[in-house]
């Protein structure tokens, strides 16, 4: 993959092919993130379009203090947030303010004894590798569905951290949330996906253990 500084230089020089590459690479990820903020695909596409226009406008003065990727995602997050807020005017939704602290614990309390021990052993999932899970349509789609069902905030964090591979500082920067909040959201998101995977793998595994 091309070095970012080279790409930025090409973009600033007006290299259209470079811009096409950039759009090709990031439009999908942008859409994915935009959908965590707004309710519909058409609106998400508009937000992404606005983001690209913002990127084009800001490129001449982009100083490279953050990475290009982080900078672009931040533009997107800001556009998407204000759009999301406007959309939900009837039901006020404050993006950063509500803390996760009061939400239910990531693993259901009833999976533990009162002494705090696991009631049943979590399975090893030894037959299912991540590759197999992603390559099998049924399980892959179930994972994507589980992610889609996460709360917007959890979905945004896990999308940026685990799917897009950004580090925690970048994610806090992009979403305007505290480190603590980000860690809790990531944990809860991963826990929710784990629970979903648990259910998926139970369904697709053969029922009896043949001795």
């Amino acid at each position, binding site marked *: 993959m091309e070095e970012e500084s080279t790409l930025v230089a090409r973009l600033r020089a007006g290299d259209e092919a470079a811009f096409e590459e950039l759009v090709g690479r990031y439009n999908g990820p942008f859409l994915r993130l935009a959908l965590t903020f707004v309710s519909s695909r058409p609106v998400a596409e508009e937000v992404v379009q606005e983001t690209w226009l913002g990127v084009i406008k800001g490129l001449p003065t982009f100083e490279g203090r953050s990475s290009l990727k982080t900078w672009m995602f931040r533009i997107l997050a800001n556009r998407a947030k204000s759009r999301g807020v406007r959309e939900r005017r009837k039901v006020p939704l404050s993006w950063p303010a509500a803390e996760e602290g009061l939400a239910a614990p990531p693993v259901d309390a009833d999976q533990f004894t009162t002494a705090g021990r696991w009631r049943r052993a979590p399975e090893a999932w030894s037959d299912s590798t991540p590759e197999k899970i992603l390559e099998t349509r049924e399980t892959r789609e179930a994972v*994507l569905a589980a992610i889609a069902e996460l709360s917007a905030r959890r979905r945004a964090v896990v999308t940026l951290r685990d799917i897009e591979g950004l580090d925690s500082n970048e994610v806090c920067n992009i979403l305007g949330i505290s480190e603590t909040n980000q860690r809790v959201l990531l944990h809860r998101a991963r826990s929710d996906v784990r629970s979903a995977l648990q259910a998926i793998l139970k369904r697709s595994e053969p029922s009896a253990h043949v001795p």
Partner: protein
Amino acid sequence: MLTCRDLAERATDYLEGDLSLWHRLRVRVHLNMCARCRAYLGQMRKTVRVLRGISCAAAGAVPDDGASLAPLPDELRRAFRATHRILEDE
């Protein structure tokens, strides 16, 4: 004593290396003695690997539903060219 429930709460902090030495050691001691928590952590690790594999999987396996915007829409092409033109004229 660290319970399994406590460990489950801290699993991500542990996997991300965000625990202090003290807490990390407590987790390790518990893991040494608790196969169930080892299994649980294994699940969390696998979950993260599945999540990390999604962008590649999505690119390959799912038919392009217009997400990649190829070819470049006219509006973006025009905007990109316009900016460069302005810079050239300066």
